[in-house]
């Protein structure tokens, strides 16, 4: 089929960019219209990307276009865009969530002084994220990759007058930088080893698809380094520490950047460069195990947290771990499917949490309660999101998690066990969160009130999507077209019935446990705490990862920094001061010598003569 609209796909990131430029230039005077412009920009992106997706669903060919950017000797840097099924899907996800978050933010950020700045940042982020998605080569992707990192930094630190926000922004920037360095090195290695230094994804797929062009050791190295970048961006262990702290930013930002889009960029990157990983079994294993460990590790921390957004943040980390595990198992389909559904229900959960915070002005779940009665829309949509996350059929999360677990069972039973355990923990912490916030009696008189329509409508839309998004790929005969459309081969469906049963049972068990503990009180809440206080402390303190990093990296780096600073201040600076001081001092002394007294001058002459004579006489001795 002809590609008509795909030719204009490059316009998708341009709309938000235009909005960003307008807001940047005239933002100060546009407190009312600024948000509308940004929202319209993202709406335009959404419409166009939806049209492109429809065209792609209709079977249009992949489209690639671009132009030469810089010529360096015989090498040409190109700028171009790629419309494939994968990028078309990602574009829709990103622009849809961005649009809904824009709408939501009109209500959420209504009273903020710098609302136009906020929307400018969001527009810039949307533009960079869409650019990252459609970039047709790794270098462009890297540029947009850094741009989204910058936007993330700016938006986490949006309330820069809060010291925690400032610290969190710095932490996010620095920790992701660790991963980005790996990505950059991978980029340089690829540039070095690729024929014609071609960094486009098509060429990468071509080269790594054949064996022998690049040795396996280098392939593994490149893959691991790319994965390091993904680990930093997607908050995988051990670089996950920035993501929970990033919740200091405004809640819509948590939903957009730190749940639905940017953190998924790591998964997207691995999916985009998947031919490299496929060529290296060792790298795939690394990805799978890091993902699986992160999934269960973050889920266990989420159980012991008290901050509603931090729970969701750890849940995000855990779900991203699932996606990485799926990629490591070789299933781009399952990973992208989970990314797709997760984007909706996690954005929904964050926006719901934002609605709750907006109402009760606290983030501690122990200070909430009974909000289900006063905030009906929020409660219902939140329940949908929580059930989807917990993997209860027939919501979207069930299908995508099921696809991953089926892959795991097919390839690697150990990973399957870990996935099931993580699913149990997921259901448990979500039910704890939901019951503590919405069920029971209101605590501390925080009754709350429903949020305005501009905030609840996006919740409803996302809730609908969270329900239906899973139906695109069901493990039944004749329904698995999504996988085929996305990657060309369907997801594994062996033993699916077993997986479906087990995962549903585990999800229900987790929710039942949560209900027993937090609603019925059949199991005392401190049952674990009493018997194993160390375990609770360990989880509350997030396995002391932050403390370990502080002790190992921050303290030692600071000590090195101090040492260098002292060296610079005292040795280098001292030498400079000494040189300057010596000149000044010599000048002063010389000035004092010029006192106009004849006898002083005579004395100097005699001293000079003595020194000269002594030097001449002394030459005899050596």
């Amino acid at each position: 089929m002809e590609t008509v609209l795909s030719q204009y796909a490059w316009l998708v990131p341009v709309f938000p960019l235009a909005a960003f430029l307008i807001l940047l230039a005239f933002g100060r005077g546009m407190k009312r219209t600024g948000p509308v412009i940004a929202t319209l920009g993202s709406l335009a992106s959404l419409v166009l990307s939806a049209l492109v997706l429809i065209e792609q669903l209709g079977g249009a060919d992949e489209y690639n276009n671009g132009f030469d950017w810089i010529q360096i000797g015989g090498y040409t840097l190109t700028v171009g865009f790629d419309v494939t099924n994968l990028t078309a899907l990602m574009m829709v996800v990103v622009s849809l969530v961005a649009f809904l978050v824009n709408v939501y933010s009109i209500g959420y950020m209504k009273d903020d002084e710098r609302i136009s700045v906020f929307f400018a940042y969001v527009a810039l982020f949307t533009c960079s994220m869409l650019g990252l998605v459609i970039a047709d080569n790794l270098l462009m992707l890297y540029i947009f990759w850094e741009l989204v990192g910058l936007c993330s930094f700016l938006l986490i630190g949006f309330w820069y007058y809060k010291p925690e926000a400032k610290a969190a922004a710095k932490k996010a920037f620095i920790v992701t930088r660790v991963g980005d360095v790996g990505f950059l090195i991978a980029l340089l290695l690829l540039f070095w080893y690729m024929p014609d230094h071609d960094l486009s994804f098509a060429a990468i797929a071509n080269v790594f698809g054949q064996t022998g062009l690049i040795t396996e050791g280098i392939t593994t190295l490149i893959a691991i380094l790319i994965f390091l970048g993904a680990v930093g961006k997607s908050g995988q262990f051990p670089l996950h520490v920035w993501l929970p702290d990033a919740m200091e930013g405004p809640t819509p930002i948590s939903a957009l950047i730190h749940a639905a889009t940017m953190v998924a960029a790591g998964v997207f990157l691995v999916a985009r460069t998947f031919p490299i990983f496929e060529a290296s079994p060792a790298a795939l294993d690394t990805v799978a195990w890091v993902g699986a460990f992160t999934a269960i590790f973050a889920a266990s921390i989420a159980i012991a947290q008290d901050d509603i957004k931090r729970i969701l943040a750890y849940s995000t980390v855990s779900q991203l771990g699932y996606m990485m595990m799926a990629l490591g198992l070789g299933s781009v389909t399952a990973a992208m499917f989970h990314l797709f559904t997760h984007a909706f229900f996690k954005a929904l959960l964050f926006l719901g949490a934002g609605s709750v915070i907006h109402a009760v002005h606290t983030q501690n779940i122990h200070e909430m309660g009974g909000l289900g009665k006063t905030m009906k829309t929020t409660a219902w949509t939140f329940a949908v999101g929580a059930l989807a996350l917990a993997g209860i059929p027939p919501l979207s999360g069930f299908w995508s998690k099921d696809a991953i677990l089926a892959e795991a069972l097919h390839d690697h039973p150990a990973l399957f066990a870990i996935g099931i355990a993580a699913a149990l923990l997921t259901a448990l912490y979500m039910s704890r969160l939901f019951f503590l916030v919405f069920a029971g009696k209101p605590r501390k008189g925080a009754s709350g009130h429903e949020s305005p329509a501009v905030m609840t409508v996006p919740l409803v839309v996302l809730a609908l999507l969270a329900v239906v998004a899973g139906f695109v790929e069901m493990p039944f005969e004749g329904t698995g077209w999504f996988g085929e459309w996305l990657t060309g081969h369907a997801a594994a469906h062996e033993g699916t019935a077993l997986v479906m049963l087990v995962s549903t049972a585990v999800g229900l068990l987790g929710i039942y446990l949560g209900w027993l503990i937090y609603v019925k009180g059949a199991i005392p809440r401190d049952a674990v705490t009493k018997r194993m206080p160390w375990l609770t402390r360990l989880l509350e303190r997030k396995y002391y990862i932050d403390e370990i990093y502080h002790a190992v990296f921050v303290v030692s780096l600071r000590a090195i920094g101090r040492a260098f600073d002292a060296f610079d201040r005292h040795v280098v600076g001292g030498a400079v001061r000494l040189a300057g001081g010596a000149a000044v001092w010599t000048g002063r002394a010389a000035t004092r010598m010029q006192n106009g007294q004849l006898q002083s001058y005579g004395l100097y002459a005699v001293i000079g003569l003595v020194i000269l004579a002594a030097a001449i006489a002394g030459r005899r001795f050596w």
Partner: protein
Amino acid sequence: MLSSYLTMAAILFCIGLYGALTKRNAVIVLMSVELMLNSVNLNLVAFSKYGVVPSLTGQIFSLFTISVAAAEVAVGVAILIALFRSRGSANVDEFNEMRR
């Protein structure tokens, strides 16, 4: 014998030098300078007798020195008197015109 005369001249010269550098009265400074000139004369005469090439030239040289020194003392004392008239002092350390 020569080195005895030379040593004698060196002693005189150094005493004169010390006086010229430290004495505050200008007349005494002038006297110290004369002392130094005299030590030179002693050297010249001593070399004229015991030098590597003994000759009368050394003595003639010292005669010239003596006459030039005489002229120098005359002019020096004249300058001193003029300075004393204008400044009311003959102390060397009160003159620092060279500084300006």
